């Protein structure tokens, strides 16, 4: 059986960074609670034996009933895992020990790693590692992952010295009695009994009996069994922490933080940060894109055009070339720049502050502050943003967020807006499209929060300490995100581009254009070829612009279309149907029905707004 070790810990304790050091494979590292939702695995090596390293999502507890927590429990309980590595934050040891005590109850071989000892030292906090090891009954290591210190000892210790922890939480005697009684009746171990008392078990009989015992405990204590168990664990964590932590510092709360989390100037700062982020992406992206497009024209599309082969083969080759060109032309200049900036914000801890400030506004839309992350991510590309809704707590929030995210103008739509409106109409007109779209997002949220079923829970969000982002980790994180984008979006882009090329080759597009002409001309007041451009936009948003140029037969669009027509075209293609990659991801994340609803809604909204602009201004 291959050696497998799994990293367990709270969000933001540096687990991902340690994972990165151990495996050398790039991996998501986030300051934002819950950023690594997927189970990441990588390979390492110890004494010429391969070791599989798993990076589990950061959790605060194993028994909160969340999906990620269930996943972590499954891995912890999996016999295939040789050893568990519980990663603790030296600056927040007590709260971190709470999770460790839960993990210890599984009785699996484990070691503990006290990370961030460097940061703790700066804040005057010292942890007595040997004492902690004695109290827990497992090997404990001190590391400073940010500096790479102590990492080399993790694998040898985990493989050779991991053992079940001897630490045991002394629970209230009624709880202990209930555990014994469940053991007698059902033959379950301590951990299963404790979980059953908190309503977590598969066996209905066990659950029912545990429920009755729990009711009894509750009658005596005026606290539920779950509350008592939790409190006992926290208290024991506190007892351990008191014995091993020496603190001379004052703790948290820097002056900068006070500014960031106040309505004034916090909210203006937040808006400023987001707007300037988009502006930077806009500027850098525009410049870089030109170079990339030129390079592709020169190295790929030009030679393909000059080939003397069967026209069908040429069509396909050209379609592939175009897909690569626009894929990279968007991905690197716009999306990668955006991801870099976002990673800086996340790793500095700012996004948690942003989420906190945005909570009230988000609340009106049926969401919570946390949802600002996927929404902002949507400005880069909707595809990873939709995948980001996994971290939202309820299905209701996920449904609302997926509607709103698909309306967020992504980089590709930015290309359409800047290429058509900013170039040929005016810059204010281009910004007005953003304004219109943002207002529509707000209105959609308001309506959805009223009609979407399900409870709305509050927000409980840890605010990690503000820290300077590490350039390497920012790069790694952005690289992972762009890789995800390329893996998911690129194949779809290639396939759709080829299909489109073939459709054009066999004259299907001309037929579509004729059929859709009434809508295009009558409803929106656009030339008939604009409908084809809009259709192409479903495959890839920025193709709406490129196709329009090709079909209009000139790059100077203002010579063939009026300003209002250009504006209408841009706003319709911005709103109208998420691209095919987004639809595919929506379907996977939230189901066919909601994905279909979102598609229908955006088509209707796009056409309605287009019609409105046409009638009002045309």
């Amino acid at each position, binding site marked *: 059986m291959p050696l497998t070790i799994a990293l367990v810990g709270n969000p933001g304790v540096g687990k991902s960074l340690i994972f990165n050091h151990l495996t050398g494979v790039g991996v998501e590292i986030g300051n934002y609670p819950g950023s690594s939702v997927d189970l990441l695995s990588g390979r390492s090596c110890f004494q010429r034996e391969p070791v599989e390293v798993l990076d589990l999502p950061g959790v*605060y*507890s194993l*028994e*909160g*009933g969340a999906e990620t927590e269930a996943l972590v429990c499954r891995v912890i309980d999996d016999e295939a895992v040789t050893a568990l590595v519980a990663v603790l934050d030296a*600056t*927040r040891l*007590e*709260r971190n020990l*709470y999770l460790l005590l839960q993990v210890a109850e599984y009785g699996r071989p484990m070691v503990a790693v006290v990370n961030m000892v460097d940061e703790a030292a700066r804040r005057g906090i010292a942890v007595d590692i040997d004492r902690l090891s004695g109290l827990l009954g497992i090997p404990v290591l001190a590391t400073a992952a940010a500096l790479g210190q102590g990492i080399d000892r993790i694998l040898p210790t985990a493989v050779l010295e991991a053992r079940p922890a001897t630490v045991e939480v002394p629970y209230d005697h009624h709880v202990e009695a209930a555990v014994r009684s469940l053991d007698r009746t059902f033959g379950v171990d301590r951990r299963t009994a404790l979980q059953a008392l908190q309503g977590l078990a598969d066996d209905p009989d066990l659950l*029912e009996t545990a429920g*009755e015992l729990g009711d009894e405990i*509750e*009658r005596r*204590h*005026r*606290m*539920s069994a*779950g*509350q008592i168990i*939790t*409190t006992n664990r*926290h*208290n024991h964590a*506190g007892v351990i922490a008191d014995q091993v932590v020496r603190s001379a510092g004052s*703790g*948290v*709360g820097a002056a900068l933080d*006070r500014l960031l*989390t*106040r*309505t004034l100037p916090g909210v203006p700062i937040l808006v400023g940060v987001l707007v300037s982020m988009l502006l930077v992406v806009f500027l850098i992206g525009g410049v870089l894109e030109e170079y990339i497009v030129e390079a592709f024209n020169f190295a790929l599309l030009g030679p393909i055009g000059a080939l003397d082969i069967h026209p069908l083969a040429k069509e396909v080759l050209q379609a592939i070339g175009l897909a690569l060109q626009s894929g990279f032309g968007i991905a690197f200049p716009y999306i990668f720049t955006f991801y870099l900036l976002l990673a800086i914000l996340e790793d500095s801890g700012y996004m*948690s502050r942003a*989420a*906190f*400030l945005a*909570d*009230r506004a988000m*609340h009106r839309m049926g969401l*919570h*502050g946390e949802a600002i992350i996927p929404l902002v991510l949507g400005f880069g590309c909707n595809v990873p943003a939709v995948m980001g809704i996994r971290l939202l*707590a309820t299905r209701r929030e996920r449904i609302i967020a997926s509607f709103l995210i698909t309306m967020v103008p992504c980089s590709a739509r930015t290309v359409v807006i800047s290429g058509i409106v900013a170039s040929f109409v005016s810059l204010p007109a281009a910004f007005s499209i953003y304004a219109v779209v943002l207002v529509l997002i707000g209105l959609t949220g308001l309506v959805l929060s009223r009609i979407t079923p399900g*409870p*709305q*829970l*509050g*927000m*409980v*969000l*840890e*605010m990690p300490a503000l820290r300077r982002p590490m350039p390497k980790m920012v790069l790694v994180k952005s690289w992972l995100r762009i890789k995800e984008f390329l893996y998911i979006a690129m194949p779809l882009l290639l396939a759709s581009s080829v299909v489109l090329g073939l459709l054009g080759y066999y004259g299907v597009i001309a037929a579509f254009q004729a059929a859709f002409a009434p809508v295009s001309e009558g409803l929106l007041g656009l030339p008939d070829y604009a409908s084809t451009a809009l259709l192409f936009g479903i495959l890839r948003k920025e193709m709406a612009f490129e196709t329009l140029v090709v079909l209009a037969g000139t790059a100077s669009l203002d010579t063939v279309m009026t300003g209002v027509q250009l504006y209408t075209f841009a706003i319709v293609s911005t709103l109208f149907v998420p691209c095919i990659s987004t639809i595919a991801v929506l379907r996977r994340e939230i189901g066919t029905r909601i994905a279909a609803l979102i598609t229908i809604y955006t088509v209707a909204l796009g056409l309605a707004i287009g019609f409105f602009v046409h009638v009002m201004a045309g």
Partner: protein
Amino acid sequence: MTGTATEREEDLLEAILESPDLDRAALATRLGLEPADLADVEMAAVASGRLARDGSGFPRLTQEGHRLARRIHRRHRTLACFFEQLGMARDAADREACTLEHGVSDEAIARLADHLRCPGRCERESPCEGGDESDGLSLLDYGEGDRVNITAVRRCGRYRRLMDMGVVPGETVIVRRRLSNRAIVIEVKGCEIGLSPECAATVFATPCP
């Protein structure tokens, strides 16, 4: 033989489950039966195998009887909770539940219970629902810099996450910041945690001396 239990039999089983030590006279009063009628019902229950007499001739629930009594009791609790939530007085809700508990289907009860489970709805199901004046003010009512002792956490919304973060009764926390939108940041166990107003309202605390 185990046939379908009569309503009176179900009431008897339920009463014995709730108060196993009542004597026959008290049982009869509680069920509103004449002692002779009670004896009949008891006999029927013994015959159907739901009751057995112990050494001193006292009726005890058999396993089968226990199961049925528990089922009826659960129906009663769920229905009564539901009626109370609709605004009925506790006594009236209990009486109504007593009538309906015999006819209602298990599915209806299961669905009703799911409906009620969203905590914060019924204090009968979870008496420690808590968080009234006796527990002090909610965190919303404290100002920046206040050091407070948590007395109760109402079980609703994201209370599990709150508790896992260390917001448990007995813990001392400091209110770090209050926003104009009533969201607050508290420091607990050396960590800062942002709470939206609806969450802060479920945490009760008294000022630290």
